[in-house]
């Protein structure tokens, strides 16, 4: 099939605008009434005083269904995840209260006044830092996504899970993280020549520990104190967390208490038993830190309906890549037979959510909606078949294949594997 030329898409939109919005309008006749009681004709909100100020603003009560979806082990309520409702959000920044969560043993309560960060191991001088001291260092901000290595893991299963887009693929969020470049602190301690890794440890109830290549910590790692301008939320690592742009969630250690420089990785549970990828030959890939290029149509998506037939719908979604910037997102309405370039919201940032959109005319036809991202290195997001051909069918982590929404002739939307 051919690419739909941009011109014809514009023409179509103008036509609908004319026939839809302007048809049937006429000027209301002004009555000569002299004494109008405006309270009868204005919305109530205009005829009374509103609510007072608030110390900390909350979302509108009308939006109280926009929530993270929690899935935890009933025997260990602190072990599980909560998915970000990506299908309900717009723009690129995830609000702090809706940033996804993955905890291994709950959210710890840490008083910053008693929290210590220790940098030791293969350094000239082991150093400890208080949170107050860290706030005095130059603060650097970085907008980037954090994606759990296990995001979309249900897509490895042989049948598609019928849940809203965010509740299957929303273990990824995007925020502006602000804090101290980790390299300043490492340099202050003095890095020994044989140091190659750092073992990061958290102060939570799992004392989570993972090994991180020193090279990354010296590159773009941030010891984050702030999330979207305010201090970190407890569930996002308060009082301090590592942010390693583009790398899987597990190494973005929350509640950080220690960085111990070592020569070799420590082979902790979360870098061997978990977050590794079982390949078809029975061996496993380890240290797959970089999250591969991926995209997701957030609207329309599973569970939504298309009310008008024919109608124009604003197709939109998110693309991101651990390798750098998104350079292109294509959208298909026929299960990948033909593709049209979507518009990318500017600015496009490296290792951050990129919002894409494209108006789509639906005329009641069966459709399969897909998006396909390409990053600045030329890497193209694979189809599910291509991913399985490379990685086998026993994967669990690091799923980045194309995600498909089926639109039925009556306008209902389902998650499908069209391959």
């Amino acid at each position, binding site marked *: 099939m051919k690419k739909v030329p941009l011109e014809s898409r514009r023409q179509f939109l103008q036509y609908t605008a004319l026939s839809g919005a302007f048809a049937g309008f006429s000027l209301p006749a002004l009555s000569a009434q002299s004494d109008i009681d405006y309270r009868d004709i204005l919305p109530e909100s205009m005829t009374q005083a509103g609510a007072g100020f608030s110390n900390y603003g909350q979302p509108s009560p009308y939006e109280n269904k926009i929530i993270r979806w929690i899935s935890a082990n009933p025997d260990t309520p602190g072990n599980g995840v909560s998915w970000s409702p990506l299908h309900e959000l717009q723009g690129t920044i995830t609000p702090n209260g809706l940033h996804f969560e993955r905890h291994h043993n709950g959210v710890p309560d840490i008083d910053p006044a008693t929290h210590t960060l220790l940098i030791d191991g293969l350094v000239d001088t082991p150093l400890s830092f208080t949170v107050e001291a860290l706030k005095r260092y130059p603060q650097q901000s970085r907008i980037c996504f954090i994606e759990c290595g296990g995001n979309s893991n249900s897509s490895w299963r042989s049948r598609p899970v019928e849940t809203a887009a965010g509740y299957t693929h929303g273990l990824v969020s995007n925020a502006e993280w602000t804090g101290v470049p980790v390299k300043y602190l490492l340099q202050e301690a003095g890095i020994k020549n044989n140091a190659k890794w750092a073992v990061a440890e958290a102060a939570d109830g799992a004392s989570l520990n993972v090994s991180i290549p020193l090279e990354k910590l010296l590159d773009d790692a941030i010891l984050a104190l702030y999330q979207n301008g305010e201090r970190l939320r407890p569930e996002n690592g308060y009082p301090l967390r590592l942010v390693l742009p583009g790398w899987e969630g597990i190494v973005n250690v929350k509640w950080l208490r220690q960085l111990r420089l070592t020569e070799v990785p420590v082979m902790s549970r979360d870098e061997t038993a978990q977050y590794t990828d079982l390949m078809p030959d029975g061996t496993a*890939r380890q240290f797959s830190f970089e999250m591969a290029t991926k995209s997701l149509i957030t609207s329309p998506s599973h569970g939504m309906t298309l009310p008008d037939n024919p109608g124009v719908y604003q197709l939109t979604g998110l693309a991101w890549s651990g390798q750098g910037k998104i350079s292109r997102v294509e959208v298909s309405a026929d299960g990948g037979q033909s593709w049209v370039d979507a518009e990318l919201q500017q600015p496009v940032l490296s290792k951050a959510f990129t919002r894409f959109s494209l108006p789509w005319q639906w005329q009641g036809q069966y459709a399969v909606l897909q998006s396909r991202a390409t990053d600045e290195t030329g890497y193209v997001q694979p189809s599910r078949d291509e991913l399985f051909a490379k990685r086998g069918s026993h994967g669990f982590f690091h799923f980045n294949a194309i995600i498909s929404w089926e639109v039925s002739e009556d306008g209902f939307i389902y998650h499908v594997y069209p391959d």
Partner: protein
Amino acid sequence: MFTRISLTMVLLSLLPALAAQPLYQPLGQPASDLSDKPEWNLTISPDGQGLPAGSGTASQGKHIFEQHCAACHGFGAIGGSAMPLVGEVGSLASEYPEKTVNSYWPFATTLFDYIRRSMPPSAPFSLNSNEIYALCAYILSQDGIIEADVELNAVTLPQVTMPNRNGFSATYPQ
């Protein structure tokens, strides 16, 4: 080798950049004393570094497991709300691979490290070293990775060869 070269390059390239960094006061406190304390030395390496004194056997471990672990991992360490810990050795290349401690984990030292810091979830660090060695012995002996009467301690635990010891290949550095 590759890591060493690229690391040196990173360090070198930082030098000129550092001059252009904003000025800041170094506020780290010398902390050699902390570094030596047990609470800052939780991590245990495959070579056994960090393992505490103490010892335990599988028969002791069975009892402790039933008391502290079976509620979630199942009696026999299979079939609870939490993942199975034993069995399925040799299944990884099959049509139905199962990742358990015994089938998948490359190092036995990781088991001690993880149990101490994370299990049971309601009371991490509540078990003593003897109990943790015994739990390791119980889990490992279930699949014959160690003999039922072997005593695990700081010397013998790092000597255990896990069935999937060579099953991992690092994708970093590329």
